[in-house]
């Protein structure tokens, strides 16, 4: 899971320019999360980690921190490896 954090952090750093985002910091609490950012985040994760985010994964709980996103990626990859 740790190895997933760096690319996620780098991606998010483009949006939170003047703020060093902590692994457990709630991005929804930091500022306004607009639709375009949300979509770009989902597309980035799908492409970066070659996974498909299903409708049921699209819960804000899965996206609210770097840790949560990395956890989601980990779970999806394990699932993928099993099938």
């Amino acid at each position, binding site marked *: 899971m740790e190895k997933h954090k760096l690319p996620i952090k780098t991606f998010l750093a483009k*949006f939170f*320019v003047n703020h060093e985002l902590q692994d457990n910091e709630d991005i929804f609490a930091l500022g306004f*999360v607009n639709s*375009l950012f949300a979509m770009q985040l989902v597309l980035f994760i799908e492409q970066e980690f070659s996974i498909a985010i299903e409708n049921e994964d699209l819960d*804000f709980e899965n996206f609210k921190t770097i840790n949560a996103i990395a956890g989601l990626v980990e779970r999806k990859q394990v699932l993928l490896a099993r099938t």
Partner: protein
Amino acid sequence: MISIDTKNLPEKQDKKKQIKCVVWDLDNTLWNGILLEDNSVSLRNQVVDLIQTLDSRGILHSIASRNDYDRAMEKLEELGLKEYFLYPQINWNSKVASINNIAKSINISLEAIAFIDDQPFELEEVGFSCPEVLCINAFNLDQLLDLPAMNPRLITADSKMRRLMYINDLERDRAEENFIGSQEEFLATLKMNFTISSAQEEDLQRAEELTVRTNQLNTTGYTYSDDELKYFIRSPQHKLLIASLDDKYGSYGKIGLALVECQEKIWTIKLLLMSCRVMSRGVGTILLNYIMNLAKTHNVCLQAEFIANNRNRMMYITYKFAGFKETEQIGNTAILKTQLTRIQAFPDYVNLQTY
């Protein structure tokens, strides 16, 4: 050979197909002759009238021409047509690449593009790589204005202003490219005013136009007739909200619409849409947040209908990230519900006005 005659097109066309942008070749299409080879070129007879008429219908124009950019732009300026063309692609690349660039820049789908050229090779290449594009042979322009796809049923104040609104967008984009700082800081420099109001009789044409033109940022794709919309604005069980946006560069016009069905204990968002032109302005979620706050004040539950098409995933994500959970699927319609426990505050970079 692929048929490129306009006369074959009307019956093949989907009745609902609407062209939003016409992409012109230059040599022997817009003008007679070849700019870099002939001593002089002259406009073809009808093109000024075609361009102006379509422009007044709210249809945009662009260019895909293999030519020298500076010489061609100079010529267009001399002919008094330069201001009509958005994102002109004058280069030595394939027309397929040029058309894709235009679609991306204007943020419309290839289905909403018509391409006019005199060279069968170009028409065939575009027709092969982008079958969604309506390809028209430059020698068959007589019926262009009569094609159903070139005749939007609704022409509103917003459609007539469309080109100017895109030109304002160009200025904003340039300012954004040169801006150093976060996106939020840039948005703050725009001094945006977002206005939400109950739709009035005079908004209904635009409301209908929005339901017809918007695919990407549209939660259900429902369209309503004029009579239905008139009913909604009078009905105490419905809220028809229309949103507009302006900033220091000018107005974006009426760009958002929501229909909420209000029952005693539960409100249902039947439709929520935003024009794609405001996608990068970070205002898409504001209308939803406004409805969420309103529901909370009225102490009712809030649910939303969602019908997926292959382009509106962003709206699904918008609901989910706003805390909605999918509770059931009825046919192709998903029902999403929220407990209204967490509602995002409105962003600092927009001044919100409601009536």
